[in-house]
């Protein structure tokens, strides 16, 4: 089996079978990561450009390691928006880079839809590493992978995503992926951080955290940004922590064998208390490990790979 598209722009519209294929392939690569020599020749001769228009530590290193472990050639490019605005357009920049003969582009950009825009100007495969508040598909996939690893199947799980849903691409990719795989999803956060008609995405919507957590298996905690307070969306981070912060007291409402997830970076003491983040139910570091395997799988499959890898 192969993926239908040459690009990975989001999890919206990706079928259950395709997600299954990516997760199965990632499982094989995860095994590679456990070996003493963590490298395979799979993408030898393939050139990947990592275009990061927005700061990133985790995702960027994760992609770089995935590329290196597949023996791909890689080039990194990062730019601040301001310098780009003054100079050449994004289209010119990427056209120039492509003229140097590349095969794949990993892009992170603060504007939603930019990866789609690149598919219109380039012939390379495009992988979305996060576009504005739109999607972050590899994050969604690694979250699915982490849950499948622990529970064996995703279908039937009750997942609550807590925090700034409005500005979160992680939330959107998770909603699409989880729904496709048969999980039931709820979102919870202050009403000012809830996007318009989010319920139409087929999720439960809560502004009371304790209600949202009742009977849930998984809590995916989103980072809350300080700027939201300045923008008038939140009175204070203190109040946010009181109303929406995940602490050990609140975990009592969850099902036994529950899971705490966080896409990082964590604001300890704001959206999550340290004892929960570091506690036995947290899979936060597993998510990071699995991120490399997922990105290896995506790179491999988009470069034309089929099913199982040697």
């Amino acid at each position, binding site marked *: 089996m192969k993926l239908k598209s040459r690009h990975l722009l989001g999890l919206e519209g990706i079928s259950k079978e395709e997600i299954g294929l990516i997760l199965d392939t990632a499982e094989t690569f995860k095994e590679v990561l456990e070996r003493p020599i963590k490298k395979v020749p799979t993408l030898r001769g393939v050139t990947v450009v990592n275009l990061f228009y927005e700061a990133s530590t985790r995702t960027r290193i994760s992609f770089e390691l995935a590329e290196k472990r597949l023996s791909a050639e890689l080039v990194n490019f990062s730019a601040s928006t301001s310098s780009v*605005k003054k100079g050449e357009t994004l289209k010119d920049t990427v056209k120039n880079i492509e003229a140097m003969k590349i095969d794949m582009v990993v892009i992170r950009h603060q504007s*939603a*839809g930019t990866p789609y*825009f690149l598919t219109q100007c380039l012939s390379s495969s495009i992988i979305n590493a996060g576009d*504005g*508040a739109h999607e972050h598909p590899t994050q969604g996939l690694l979250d699915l992978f982490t849950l499948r690893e622990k529970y064996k199947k995703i279908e039937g799980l009750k997942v609550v995503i807590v925090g700034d849903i409005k500005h979160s691409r992680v939330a959107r990719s998770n909603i699409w992926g989880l729904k496709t795989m048969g999980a039931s999803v709820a979102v919870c956060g202050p009403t000012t951080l809830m*996007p*318009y*008609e989010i319920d139409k995405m087929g999720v439960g919507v809560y502004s009371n955290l304790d209600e949202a957590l009742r009977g849930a298996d998984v809590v995916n905690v989103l980072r809350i940004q300080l700027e939201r307070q300045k923008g008038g969306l939140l009175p204070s981070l203190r109040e946010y922590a009181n109303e929406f912060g995940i602490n050990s007291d609140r975990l009592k409402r969850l099902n036994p064998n529950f899971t705490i997830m966080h896409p990082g970076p964590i604001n300890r003491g704001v959206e999550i208390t340290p004892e929960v983040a570091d506690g036995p139910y947290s899979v936060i570091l597993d998510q990071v490990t699995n991120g490399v395997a997922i990105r290896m799988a995506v790179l491999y499959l988009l470069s034309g790979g089929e099913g199982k890898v040697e």
Partner: protein
Amino acid sequence: MNKKTSIEAELIIAGGRIIDPASKLDKVGDIYIRDGKIIKIETKKLIPRKKIRFSPEIIDAFDKIVTPGLIDMHAHLREPGREDEETILTGSEAAVAGGFTSICCMPNTQPPIDNQESVKFIYEKAKSAKCKVYPVAGATKGLKGEELTEIADLVKAGAVAISDDGRPIYSSSLMRYALEYSKMYDLPVISHCEDLALSSDGVMNEGFVSTVLGLKGIPGVAEEVMVARDIRLAEFTKSRVHIAHVSTEGSVNLIREAKRKGVKITCEATPHHFTLTDEIIKTFDTNAKVNPPLRTKKDLDALKKGLKDGTIDCIATDHAPHSIEEKDVEFDAAPFGMVGLETALGLVITELIEKKVLTWIEAIARMTINPVKILKLNAGQIKVGMPADLTVIDPETNWVVEPKEFKSKSKNSPFGGRKLKGRAFLTIVGGKVAYQS
């Protein structure tokens, strides 16, 4: 046929279905033109078709619809300042190709049209244009929203309205003064209704589609709170306000109620707002990025209802040319606006007349006599003595929008590839053929 009249006429539009909303005329007839004016309208003794074929001064309008020249009260012609995107000449070429014989240009040029000299500049340039061009002048100096322009001077130079279009007059007190002051000259204030704090850095309608796409939304209330403000100010000052590009159901309802109360308010809707919804943004097409943004089906239906019941007086294009370089960027970085002069009539026929939203006479009224009443232009009627500004429409022709073929310098249209029915066959400005398909 009266032989004498026939000889005297320089041009005759013969055998077309004449639709003149002002006189409620809807009959097959011949229109005689001389010295740029309509000299006779004959609906009884028509010129036989056989004769038409052999007379160069007679235009065969058989199977065509003849209307007063269409009027677009809202276009951006970009001159002075962005002549790479449009000029008064190229804008007028696009206008006549779209069936328009008079257009109003908005003042947000570089520099803006905010003093007598710049109004004169527009009229000077308009002399060589293909259609009549009427400037709307700025309501505030530099369109900065701080001080009123010299409105008396602007009126003397020929400004037909004042507006800061592209931006609202954000200060409520300055809006009040603009309304009060322009009342001395019975000049309408055209208001771009947008609460900038609510629209903020939004790029599309705030709704389910923006939620899915993660693009920053512009809520409908950003328009509606300003419409509500302007209604109260117009009522209080007893002045005339015209709301530009109404886009939401809420605005239509507010205006309907205000009209019922007798407030001197008029408004317009654009073809793109009554044709497209925010669903089109799903492909991140920057040509569909426009302000106010494309809304939802509910809003689109409300606009149609408002057009039908007369709440919405006019159809205007908000023709906003942008260069390819400006639009060929990521969605957030693209400017707002789309061209509209060459698709408006086809969209009106296809979306409103063919779909039985409006009758021909209702649709044409909203593109002729209604804007004329607001702006007090000497146009918009088929009547003896009036300037011979006429549009001959081929209502049956099916065509596909091809932006590359636009006369406009800019091609930023989201309608490329769309099938439309009906378009201008012939456009006559001041008795002369300005466009022939």
